[in-house]
């Protein structure tokens, strides 16, 4: 299973030592569930394609409204709603990212602050309007610049970071706030979490009916460890069952 080691996870000694200095901060991450969501009516999502039905935005847990506007619009271009069905906007990938930035992905919070601001500045400079107010073609042009690192103040590989998190938010278990209504799983034909799979369900040529089930629809599984799940969160300390 050594092959399971992900490419790009090696750190240099300098990065390593830098991280060591941040260890205290990592340990102090507040569980996402402990943060009270802001109350109030859900706001409409900015940056949707004209004519698309309004998608309600959930109360924000980490991002500011301005940041969320940019992020929603980026997600909607990375995995667009089109003839192949709903995309990252309907999956609520931005909601997944917002919630995760208040929890497991908290170490990326500063990168999002800097990166989203840089993208908005670049949109104004290069295309004359805030990112979320541009049309799809202009948004794609800005994102190509961002992918190539051509914007001032952009954190290193910010495009890759957002793409990775947008895919997570579109295809993850809905428990985490993304993949809403299972639109991500339906897109690629994943038939849903099952706890028993029959021999016939593993034959080629069989198309399984999606069951639209999350892992946590099965009451047998503990949820607490899923919501936290970060390094140093002390999970897994369940004591001796004997």
């Amino acid at each position, binding site marked *: *299973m*050594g*092959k*399971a*080691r992900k490419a790009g*996870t*090696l*750190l*240099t*000694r300098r990065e*390593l030592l830098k991280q060591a200095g941040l*260890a205290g901060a990592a340990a102090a991450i507040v569980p996402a569930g402990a943060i009270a969501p802001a109350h109030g009516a859900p706001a409409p999502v900015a940056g949707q394609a004209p004519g698309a039905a309004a998608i309600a935005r959930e109360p924000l847990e980490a991002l500011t409204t301005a940041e969320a506007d940019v992020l929603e619009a980026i997600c909607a*271009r*990375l*995995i*667009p709603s089109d003839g*192949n069905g709903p*995309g990252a906007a309907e999956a609520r990938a931005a909601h997944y990212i917002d919630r995760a930035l208040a929890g*497991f992905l908290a170490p990326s919070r500063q990168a999002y602050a800097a990166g989203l601001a840089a993208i908005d500045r670049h949109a104004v400079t290069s295309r004359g309007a805030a990112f979320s107010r541009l049309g799809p073609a202009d948004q794609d042009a800005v*994102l190509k610049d961002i992918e190539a690192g051509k914007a001032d103040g952009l954190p290193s590989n910010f495009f890759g970071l957002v*793409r990775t998190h947008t*895919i*997570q938010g*579109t295809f*993850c*278990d809905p428990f*985490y706030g993304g993949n809403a209504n299972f639109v*991500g799983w339906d*897109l*690629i*034909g*994943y038939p849903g*979490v*099952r*706890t*028993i*799979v029959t021999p016939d*369900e*593993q*034959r*080629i*040529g069989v198309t*399984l009916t999606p069951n639209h089930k999350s892992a*946590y629809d*099965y009451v*047998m*599984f*503990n949820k607490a*460890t899923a919501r936290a*799940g*970060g*390094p*140093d969160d002390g999970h*897994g*300390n*369940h*004591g*001796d*069952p*004997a």
Partner: protein
Amino acid sequence: MATAIMATRLKETEVVIIGLGAAGGVAALPLAQAGIDIVALEAGTWLTKRDFAPDELRNNVRDWPQAVQKAQHEIPTQRVSARGLTLRASSHPMMNAVGGTTLHYWAQSWRLNPWDFKVVSETTKRYGASRVPKGSTVEDWPFGLDELERYYDRVEHEIGVSGQAGNIRGAIDRRGNIFEGPRSRPFPMPPLRGTGFTDLMATAATGLGWHPFPGPAAINSRTYDGRPACMYHGFCNKGGCHVDAKNSPAVTTIPKAQKTGHLKVVTRAHVTTIEVSASGRVSGVNYVTDGVEYFQPARVVLLATYTYENSRTLLLSKSAAFPNGLSNNHGQVGRHYFSHNQGAGVTALFPKNLNNWYGLPAQGTAVDDWADDNFDHAGLDFIGGGNLWIFSDRRPIGAANMDTFGKAPTWGSAWKAFIKENADRTNTCYLQKTTLPYEDNYLDLDPVVKDPLGLPVCRITADYKDNERRLSAFVQDKMVEWYRAAGAVEVLRGPVGVMGISTHAYGGTRMGDNVETNVVNRWGFSHEVPNLGILGASVMGTSGARNPTLTAQALAWRTAEHLVGNWKTIAG
């Protein structure tokens, strides 16, 4: 050490096992059944099937199984040579828990093949001594498969291993691996079932004149010892089993040993050093729980952490008798290290859906025709070979992150159209290949990076050599041939990669008769410290072309049985 003076001294026990994972968790049973009192010090905790939610984001993306207390703080550093840049992975591949990494491993439970025990003598006999790669420190094992067979058999039946025998007392059965060494009897359970995809690949292999077979797994194919059969739900990779069908020691040998009343399991025990008496024998183990230091005296210590931590613990345990680390007066601790050559994979794209959404990495088809010395190497420039393994295993985030084979951009509508069509049409194989130890591949202590207790972490200095690289290219070609024969329309070849931190790490405390080149003797006890035993793949001198766990477990059982039979001599 100062810690021992300040530590709370606990009541002496007969045996301390450090680390209750794949090896330590198995060794506990024969000791407990013999009435020997054991204290097992485990850094992790108990996990149960309720903890093992089928949750890809948590398990596979966020590495939840490994994100536990100790290992994450002790990730070894690595560099390719003494002059290379030192790097560090962001995650330790192993986990701390009762049962250790057997909770989330793939559970392939292979025996090594006969050649793996005799690489030097067999290579010399067939091709001449010059064919043993220059710079390699490889030795024949002190015994052959015939000696270990009894222990393989015992562990297979004790924990439960499913599979199809290919050789029972010399009688070849073509449904199994015709290249394997003789077994004394069949597996205790039939193999895991095939899938549409594994059957497709098996048919293609047969068409090439190869000999496909279902691989062995420590997973129940039927009810075994009161635990149910596998549910094939698709979350075995980096996940524990939700029905206890994966036969980790946590659900097999450890509970059974506890029932004897002779095994005490201490969880969240962070072992720091092994203590030595004035006579040069080990006297017990220092550990820390929640900042409180303890000393657990014992008559015998069995070190059963992972390969990196086995060497590290010895190197950290310095004393007047062992100034360079415990059992290291011959300078062999950390030597003969290697991690399995598993890179240079192949990813294929098929023209139809494979329905691989469920299943597990142990549910696959193997080909051994190009492993070990199962083919003539006379005209080749390497020794050894690789086991080809394909399996059914796919989850949605991983599927969406599939390679686009140059056919689509990486985002936008065209990318979305590509993954919608192809998410269930790709497959990546698992190619495990012969890996040898070399003079300049080794483990030691990092001079800079320390854990939160201030103790140096392990440092890996290692790289693949010509033999591994040539062999990788050869095996990769065979895998491409196999995928093409099964109808793949595109193939991608992965790089060999670096010999970094791995779940298949070997050596550092090698087993052998020669005290000048090995840390432990043929029974797994230190050449220098008679009451110190060492368990795990750190004692293995060759990798073979297959997963190490069952071999580590067979060796652990054998070491424990030897201790039972020679208690007075060893315990003193």
